[in-house]
């Protein structure tokens, strides 16, 4: 064991994080190395010193004040609608059924149906506010060639007494479209919604591409929203091509936004696609002043399983003066 490694292990041992066999090896080294023995004493002294700034229990006043303020804030929040609770529960159930494809498919179909119903209810409440819904219900629906086309659900069936006459009320899906510039906030909002669309790969991929291109060009990607969407896609999307696109869209913001930087570091450490990891390494070069970035690059350069990743990390590190 060399002294550099021993110094790291001394800190881990001081905090109870060293496995027994490594601790035994360290003990043998320290017994024969005065410098490391001194190092260990200094680490122990640091621990004692740090305890001179003790953790204090919050006062009863602070607790009471904080709790009261939280209660007021929670009381002021509007209650969740049944749709929001249902969607949340659906999401939770879907996650637990990931290992059961058949059941997951069934749940997906149920979710799609519930989503359509939910979409109708949202549209209905908006129309009611404008008064348009009341007018639409009084207006007879023109006969369709295929009345079942575009039907979301049947809301009621009423048969006239002693008659063959039946009144069926149904709700229809209303397709809509919006045309506009990529700078239009409404277009951007729809694109961000589309990035979470799991029913159509084409829509999902296209939306991420457009958002990433806009961010890469620096077009209004400064507030929350588009950057958060791209970071989410980079972290969780299953398609490596889409993740790479999201990463490219975020490149411009690595230096100024620590959240973006952290997302890129996570991609470097956790992504299973070497192209993405290589791209992440090359993006981190300009922010080598960040000690976390340097440390991650250092770790990857020395211990990553992929030799190409190790090589690229070393190349970036070689451009950082302190590591030469």
């Amino acid at each position, binding site marked *: 064991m060399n002294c550099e490694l021993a110094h790291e292990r001394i800190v881990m041992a001081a905090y109870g994080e060293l496995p027994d066999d490594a601790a035994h090896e360290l003990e043998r080294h320290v017994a024969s190395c005065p410098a490391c023995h001194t190092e260990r004493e200094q680490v122990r002294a640091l621990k004692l010193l740090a305890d*001179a700034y003790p953790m204090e229990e919050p006062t009863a006043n602070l607790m009471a*004040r904080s709790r009261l303020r939280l209660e007021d804030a929670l009381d002021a929040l509007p209650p969740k609608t049944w749709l929001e609770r249902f969607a949340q529960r659906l999401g939770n159930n879907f996650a637990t059924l990931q290992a059961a494809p058949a059941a997951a498919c069934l749940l997906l179909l149920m979710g799609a149906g519930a989503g359509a119903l939910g979409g109708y209810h949202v549209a209905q409440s908006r129309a009611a506010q404008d008064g348009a819904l009341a007018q639409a219900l009084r207006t007879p629906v023109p006969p369709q060639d295929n009345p079942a086309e575009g039907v979301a659900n049947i809301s009621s069936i009423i048969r006239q007494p002693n008659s063959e006459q039946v009144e069926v009320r149904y709700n229809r899906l209303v397709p809509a479209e919006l045309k506009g510039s990529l700078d239009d906030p409404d277009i951007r909002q729809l694109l961000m919604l589309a990035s979470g669309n799991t029913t159509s790969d084409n829509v999902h991929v296209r939306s991420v591409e457009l958002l990433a291109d806009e961010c890469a060009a620096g077009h209004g990607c400064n507030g929350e929203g588009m950057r958060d969407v791209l970071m989410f896609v980079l972290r969780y999307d299953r398609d490596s091509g889409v993740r790479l696109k999201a990463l490219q869209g975020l490149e411009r913001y690595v230096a100024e936004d620590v959240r973006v930087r952290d997302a890129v570091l996570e991609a470097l450490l956790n992504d299973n696609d070497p192209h993405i990891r290589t791209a992440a390494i090359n993006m981190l070069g300009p922010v080598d002043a960040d000690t976390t970035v340097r*440390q991650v690059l250092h770790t990857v350069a020395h211990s990553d399983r992929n030799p190409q990743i190790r090589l690229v990390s070393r190349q970036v590190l070689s451009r950082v003066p302190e590591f030469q």
Partner: protein
Amino acid sequence: MDGPNRGQKRLEARRPETELIREAQAGSRAAFDALVKQYEAQVLRLALHLTGSEHDAEDIYQEAFLKAYRYIGNFRFECSFYTWIYRIVTNLCLDQLRRRKTRREDQAVILDHSGDEIDVLASVSDERSFSNPAKELDRKVLATRIQEALGKLTPRERMVFELKHYQGLRLRTIGEMLNTTEETAKNTLFRATKKLRAQLAGLR
């Protein structure tokens, strides 16, 4: 057998919290309030020690539990609720530390809600404190120096050191809370201790 019984007991001890979480997810405010009561002291303690300000600690407490309330439906029991709530709190504390770094604030003392200084060591019991006033002053000066040295760490280094040294968490847990690896947390701790030793060299 002791092993399985201990596992069973641990499971039973956790069940009430699991039930509380499910009830809170279903919309029960009482269940959420019970969860808050279980974790509020730890949250405040961490925020207060990190920020040195009662006002900032209150803000972090408020934001953390409001976020928890808003997103509790997304909690999928993939980690413990403790880790989940701490993840929210540590991210808020990190944001606060980063804002301070940007504004170059130097919070060397703890402030109460009206902005007056709190004597950190005044509430320390007699068993711990020295009866000698001169030594008491030394301890206060020392505490201030420690705070200053901690303030010179990067936000991440400060957070890892806080969670490891003062909260006693495992590095693996710290990695989960900060959404990074155990190895990264380990390296960050090592860097933090090196910097602190350099800052505090000469103190006895």
